[in-house]
């Protein structure tokens, strides 16, 4: 949708200054141009065509089941497996966020040794391939750990959660560091002249102000993490990719390959798209409100 406008599409243009809301194609972030309701519909259509088309062609040749029917049959198992992906992503996000906030705070510590150590840890996990981190967690974490006589089992999926929470922690740590440093030093000074200790200032004054800044990249990170959950198939967890592969080998039909994976893609898309859409909306709102 292109309209004639003499406004330059400046980023951060204050909407209040615009008399009418005009949408320029170039105003829309690339992410939204690629992933929107229309591309989703097109994708779904392509999927339906791919699924239904061949089955029409084969209808008279062989009495084989249609691809759509097969997909439908597998849907409950796939849904269950996808639920597992979601579960893993939520746990990994929760653990990674808590650890990342802590690490981020350590990254701005007044003690140089603490600050530098936190920086090294952050950079290490932020620049490691997620798959390699997963491998390491699976290899290094024992099946169970005995703590004070209580043995805690570590099944594969928990190791996977820990493995995925490490990069989340590192990214979160960077978001926090950036957000904390972006708070004007005047906030620290006025807090300290009011008698707040460093810890109190952090808790009561600085951290609450970082939430707004960290929320959009945090949500983005969650979407990315969810899309990375198929990596845990290497641990032998019954997540959606493993189940898909099992289904494909059980059916043993080559023409099923593309529709089946497309089907899974759609699941991820439908789950992740609203998150990234909401993220860009928040980003735009906060960009104006500051």
């Amino acid at each position, binding site marked *: 949708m292109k309209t004639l406008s003499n406004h330059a599409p400046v980023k951060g243009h204050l909407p209040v200054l615009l008399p009418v809301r005009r949408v320029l194609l170039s105003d829309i972030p690339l992410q939204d141009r690629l992933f929107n309701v229309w591309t989703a519909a097109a994708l779904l259509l392509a999927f339906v065509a791919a699924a239904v088309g061949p089955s029409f062609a084969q209808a008279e040749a062989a009495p084989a089941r249609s691809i759509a029917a097969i997909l439908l049959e597998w849907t409950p198992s796939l849904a269950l497996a996808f639920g597992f992906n979601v579960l893993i992503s939520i746990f990994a996000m929760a653990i990674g966020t808590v650890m990342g906030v802590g690490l981020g705070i350590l990254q701005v510590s007044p003690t140089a040794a603490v600050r530098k150590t936190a920086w090294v840890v952050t950079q290490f996990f932020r620049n490691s391939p997620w798959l390699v981190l997963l491998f390491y967690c699976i290899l290094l974490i024992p099946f169970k750990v005995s703590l004070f006589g209580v043995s805690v089992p570590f099944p594969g999926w928990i190791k996977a959660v820990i493995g995925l929470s490490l990069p989340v922690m590192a990214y979160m740590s960077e978001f926090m560091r950036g957000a904390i440093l972006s708070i004007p030093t005047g906030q620290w000074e006025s807090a300290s*002249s009011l*008698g707040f200790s460093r810890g109190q200032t952090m808790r*009561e004054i600085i951290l609450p*102000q970082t939430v707004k800044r960290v929320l959009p990249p945090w949500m983005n990170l969650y979407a990315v993490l969810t899309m990375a959950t198929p990596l845990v198939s290497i641990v032998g967890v019954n997540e959606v990719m493993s189940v898909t592969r099992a289904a494909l080998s059980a059916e043993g039909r080559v023409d099923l390959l593309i529709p089946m994976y497309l089907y899974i893609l759609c699941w991820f898309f439908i789950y992740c798209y609203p998150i990234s859409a909401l993220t860009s909306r928040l980003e735009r709102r906060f960009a104006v409100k500051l």
Partner: protein
Amino acid sequence: MSWTPDQPIVSIKDVHKSFGPVEVLRGISMDVMKGEVVCIIGPSGSGKSTLIRCINALNDIQSGSITVEGQEVHDPKLDKLALRKKVGMVFQQYNLFPHKTALQNVMMAPIKVLKQNRADVEVRARALLKKVRLEGKEDSYPGELSGGQQQRVAIARSLAMNPDVMLFDEVTAALDPETVKEVLVTIKDLAADGMTCILVTHEMGFAREIADRVYFTDKGVIVEYGPPATFFEQAKDPRTRQFLSQIL
């Protein structure tokens, strides 16, 4: 060594302060008695902000001594909290907490730092906001207030800690000419109530009106000081006279 009200409440003796190789304060001495209002004027970069920040230990010093109510501010064993309870500070940029309402801004430190009872603090905070003429703005966020209103919230916030000395660093410098007055009136009220005030200001008319003494600083030293009448009319040092002729 206990302090009695007949001794200076703030006593600054031969203070030197450097940022790296740059010596910003080069031997500053100044005594302020309880209830006095003292104005510091001087060209930009002469060290006015640095001096005032040294008084409540936001900056450290290299040598000399600063005492508040007889207590050495730059004693490494100093209980910073005890100092901050005595000395309130208001900044040029207000520095209100943007995620809290005006009332919450005022209530926060007494509740979190002094651990006072919330209900009592709220009564006092409302009274303070009324005193700075901000009745009805209790639930506004800083972003919804004008500069002058924000600065008055900042003053009320400092007063909520019941300080004995108030430091003001160019608190009207970021304001429109019309709103400057409302902040100055607030400070004048405070001074009239007997609050000890040390102000850095460029408002000469105001300094002349409320100050007991005016200090002129240049390049990290106090060039000259005196009661406003003599200071503004019969400045002795040529540097002071040149500065005054530029600004008046």
